[in-house]
């Protein structure tokens, strides 16, 4: 008799608990965000997305991330992209750069299976055919264009303007990367307009220090152009810069933290923070094709003051007002 009562009570409690959690789960609307990134150095974008979503009123308990990282190997991206698109089928995918976005686009095209994708910092989405138009991208892709391809001209201008005695700028790029080539062309065009000498230097599989030294002349500066291959040699470029007392203009905050003198471009974290808006709009039911691609909200001009002192260069006081000093961890304050 008593056992019967206890069993009934336990059954009711289990039923109530199950009903409670089922309704809670239904209400929570948990979403899955797939993430594809070529290397660990872009992981700051994920932090930006999370903070951005929280800023927009999301709770991280209701969001799960499925992350595939290519370990700086472009060949790994394709199988990961296939796995992400075919097996995981997340609600939305965040691709952390141009190469990741292009691989995803190919995979989706092959599989004829399109998942709304937000690119988080892509240099040339229009030029690579990922979107049809900035204002109405069409298709399954939207996101944040980091504008780094076009921004190279502005960076050259800022680099030569802030260091008055700069006679020539060596442009480090990757000839086998489309964006990098396009960026070089735009930079050379701007150099002509500004009357500045530039010297391209191709960097791909490995960092050829001697070759760079051969190119380098007295009074030169180094400027990196968008390329994930060039990004991978950040530490080597820093060492080279310090050994040869040559200033370097980079793009990202982490490069300046590592030892570049300047960096002008949106940070990985900032791109992620901004892309959270696109993710939110897609999660709210908007089609990626309707959501305009955005340029970076912020393009900070980073300067490493320690390196500046080390190189002992004379900098333009007016332009220095635009700069933002970076110290250890300073770039994470976005």
């Amino acid at each position, binding site marked *: 008799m008593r056992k019967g009562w206890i069993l009934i009570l336990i059954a009711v409690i289990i039923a109530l608990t199950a009903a*409670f959690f089922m309704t809670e789960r239904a209400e929570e609307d948990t979403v899955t965000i797939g993430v594809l990134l070529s290397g660990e150095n872009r992981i700051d974008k994920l932090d930006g997305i999370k903070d951005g979503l929280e800023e927009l009123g999301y709770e991280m308990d209701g969001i799960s991330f499925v992350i595939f990282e290519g370990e700086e190997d472009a060949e790994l991206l394709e199988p990961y992209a296939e796995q992400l698109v075919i097996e995981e089928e997340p609600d939305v995918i965040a691709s952390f750069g141009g190469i990741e976005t292009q691989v995803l686009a190919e995979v989706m095209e092959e599989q004829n299976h399109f998942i709304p994708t937000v690119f988080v910092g892509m240099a040339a989405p229009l030029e690579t055919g990922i979107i049809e138009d900035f204002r109405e991208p069409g298709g399954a892709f939207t996101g944040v264009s980091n504008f780094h391809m076009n921004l190279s001209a502005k960076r*050259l201008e800022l680099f030569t303007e802030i260091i008055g005695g700069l006679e020539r700028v060596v442009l480090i790029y990757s000839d086998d990367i489309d964006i990098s080539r396009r960026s070089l062309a735009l930079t050379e065009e701007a150099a002509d307009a500004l009357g500045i000498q530039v010297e391209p230097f191709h960097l791909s599989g490995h960092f050829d220090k001697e070759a760079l030294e051969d190119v380098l002349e007295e009074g030169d500066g180094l400027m990196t152009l968008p390329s994930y291959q060039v990004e991978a040699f950040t530490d080597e470029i820093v060492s080279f810069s310090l050994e040869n007392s040559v200033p370097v203009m980079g793009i990202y905050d982490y490069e300046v933290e590592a030892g570049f003198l300047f960096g002008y471009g949106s940070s990985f974290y900032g791109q992620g923070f901004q892309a959270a808006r696109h993710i939110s709009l897609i999660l709210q039911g908007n089609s990626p094709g309707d959501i305009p691609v955005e*340029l970076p909200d912020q393009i900070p001009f980073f300067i490493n003051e320690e390196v500046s002192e080390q190189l002992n260069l004379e900098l333009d006081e007016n332009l220095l007002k635009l700069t933002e000093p970076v110290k250890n961890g300073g770039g994470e304050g976005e």
Partner: protein
Amino acid sequence: MKHLFRSVRYKVLLFGLIMSIIPLVLISVYYLMEMSDYVEDSAAVSQERKVEYFAETIRNDIRSTFQKLDMMMSMGDLEDQSGVFYDLLKQQESIDEIVLLNAEGEVQTRYSRYSINQIAEGGLWVSDQAELSVLANDNHVFSNVMFNDYGQPFIQLIVRSEENGEMLGVSLQLQKLIGNVSSYQMEHNAQVYLRDQNEQIIAHQDYSRLWQTDQRTEVPDNTMVIQSSIDEVNWDLVMEQPRREMLSPIFDMLRRGSFTASFMILFGSMISIYAGLYFVKPIERLQSGMKHMQYGYWPEKMPVDRNDEFGELTAAFNDMNTEIQEKERRLEQEKERLDIVVNSMDAGLAVVKKDYSIAWMNPTLQSWIGDQRSVPCFRMFNDKDSPCYSCPLNESASFERMDENLTKTDENGEQRIYRHRVFPLQHTLEEDEEVLIVMEDITEEKRMEEKLVQTDKLSALGLMASSFAHEVNNPLASVQVYAEDLTDRLEEDKEELLESGEMADYLNIIRKNINRCKEITNNLLNFSRKSAFKAEEFPIEKVLDDSLMLMNHTLKKNHVSLKLQKPHEKIPDISGDPLKISQVFVNLIQNAVDAMSEKEFPVLEITVEMEGEEAVVSFKDNGIGIPESNIPKLFDPFFTSKPTGKGTGLGLSVCYGIVKQMEGTMEVQSEPGEGSVFRVILPVNRKDADGSEGESE
């Protein structure tokens, strides 16, 4: 079902459940009702705050930009102060570019965030010249929303210097502003959108409605609308939310509250049930144990696993159980012993109820009278048709106990004598008043007593034989002398003898002597006659006289001086057997004579007197007396202090038996060397005594 709710277990469980459910339900209902009003109000306030927050952000952005431009303009000579422009670019992240325009609107200086600062040739920065005319009246002007080469929405803000007509203009990108408004996760289907001065939607969560004109004239029913104006640019920020969706937190709270209340009720119920069972279980165990005891099964010793009052109660129950078992075992032992004693004893036992019916009798009694319990006891035990007078059950009398000899004719027609004792039982219920009857068949005992009395008599007769012979011999000798003399006188002068009357005198003397002999022999015959106990009323003095007559010769022979003292008043008659009392007196006189045999002047004092309601006959001698050690054994059968062959030892024990039979008693006082006093105390017949007294009066 009714039985269920009578049990303590279900009452405790029901009480626990009610106490768990009712307070929680009441609190929950009260809480939910109070909270629902609060949530509704606070939801509206919360939404208003959100809208106001977004609107204020936009206002601040535009206002601060105008303020900064004004400040710059007031500085003058801006063309040479690039640091001021860069400073503004750094401070205001939404500014794409800053331009310094001359009074005609041509770009003098340009600072861009995205592209090189090169100035395009021949172009006017302001696309709509009407704006410049506005500036003549107002130093601040803003453009419509426009799109740059990359599709980014922006507006132009311009301020004009009143001094030289120069203007400062900025391109303010709106993507962040629009994006923040559009992508903010609004709860419960709330929609936020931004309308510009042309009713064009420039920010909306639904991007399909972006850049369209808001042509709605009415707001849908049951929709809450919150609107905030951004006067700086004549925009409106609007939030719309269906009222039902706005109240969804209340429904959510109701649901969660219901779940929580259900859980709490269940939890409380489980605790109540557990607590109820915890308290009721030992009671049930004790109840079960009591039921076992009630039906005669001894329960196992219960585990004492608690230290509270229930533990003490269980331990006390265990002790009580053990003690009762022990007592029952002892009771059974006692009963067994009692059964054996009762069943094996020669006495008959019976329990008789108030109505004289027999409740129980032992086998011995059954064998005597048969098992006829419905027959009243007096008929069963006494051949009577009415209750015994002295029976304690008899309400007309008030005897506490009864001890009588009753006679009953058995089935063979033989009359049996039973000693019939009745003891009231104290521990009976009032309506079940009962007495215990103990019956002893004393028929054989009585017969034996008669034999002993007879033996004693014969013994006394033997002792009295010479006295008898003497007593009879003297009158016979007189008869012989007178007969011989008469014979001689008849031969000599027969006629003279007749005439003188001597013949008649002689014959009269002979007749007197023969009568005397006859009287002696009659006494002797009476004394020696074997007779059953026969109760009759008799004068004690007469019996004493007859006894003295029997002992007259013995007294004379032993030269005993007899002092007989009688009262002046008549002693009331005694109820009993006079022959047997005579036997007692003869025995006592003989014993006194024997005790004084060696005395020079033996004196026997016999006193008859009344002491209260009893007649006392004392026999005092001045003989050798009785040692004190022998006094307790005096009335034992066969005890004698006389030399062998002189006494049988039966005397005093028979005397005692006779006196007791007549409800009297015997007392002895003796002083060795001084003599003894034997007192025979007999109850007088009260009726007779009263009659006598009545007569004497």
